[in-house]
């Protein structure tokens, strides 16, 4: 059994990766949309995204849409791989439970 992923397993980060993993390719989720999907506050989400970005699991892009600043996030290929491995690990735990 491969080990779990400490970075991804934290509850909010797990939800972030689950949500971003639904999108394919280079599709981004807007920060505010992601905040609603994972039930996090601005500060909480920002801190967890920072952790995931440092691990290379998400890419964060800041840009202007008209005059409004916008932050958007997508999963990187490494992030998708790590998430898939972690989900497989969770399923193995359940399968091997007595």
């Amino acid at each position: 059994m491969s080990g779990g992923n400490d970075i991804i397993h934290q509850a909010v980060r797990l939800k972030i990766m689950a949500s971003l993993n639904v999108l394919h390719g280079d599709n981004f989720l807007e920060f505010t949309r992601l905040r609603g999907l994972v039930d996090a506050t601005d500060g909480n989400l920002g801190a967890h995204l920072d952790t995931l970005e440092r691990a290379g699991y998400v890419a964060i892009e800041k840009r202007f849409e008209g005059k409004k600043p916008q932050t958007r996030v997508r999963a990187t290929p490494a992030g998708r791989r790590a998430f898939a491995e972690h989900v497989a690990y969770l399923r193995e735990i359940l399968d091997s439970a007595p």
Partner: protein
Amino acid sequence: MTIDPADAAASLRDIASVEQRTRQTIFYATSGWILMLWGAVSASSYVITEFLPRWTAPVWGIAWLVGLVGTVGLIAGRRRRQRTQVRADWRIVYAMVVLMGYAQVFIAVLSPTYRQIDAFQPMIWMFGFVLGGIWVGRHFIGLGLVGTCLILLGYFGLGPWFHLWMALVQGVTLILGGLGLRRIGEIR
């Protein structure tokens, strides 16, 4: 790291829940565009047939064709751009065809008046929204119920203004509803 089976099960449940909500969000974005398209198409058709009643049949035939082809185009375009895993997209088209088909069967069997048909056909769509909303999200239920009430208000209370009322109802309900869904489901 050590994770016990209860924690693993809870995490998998969280994952499934967030995935489902994300797919619903993407679905809202696609269906928002579709609602706006149908709102514009049907509002225009009501206005045209109000002033050119002889053209009712061809106008609505063209409107349905434009709506259906436009819906297929919107879904195909969005899937190509986003490559999302939302299988529900094509079910919108299947559901539309089924609703349209059954509406025609009911009309053939019941032989309603033109005024009744004008109220019945959009109500079939609203019925579809309410029914679909039970699966895909409560916003559709609200949209369907509001739309139905507005149609009934026009049918029973507005006499000769019914057609123009329907143009307004279709325009406002579907276009504003579509804009609302797009806001909920924006993916960039």
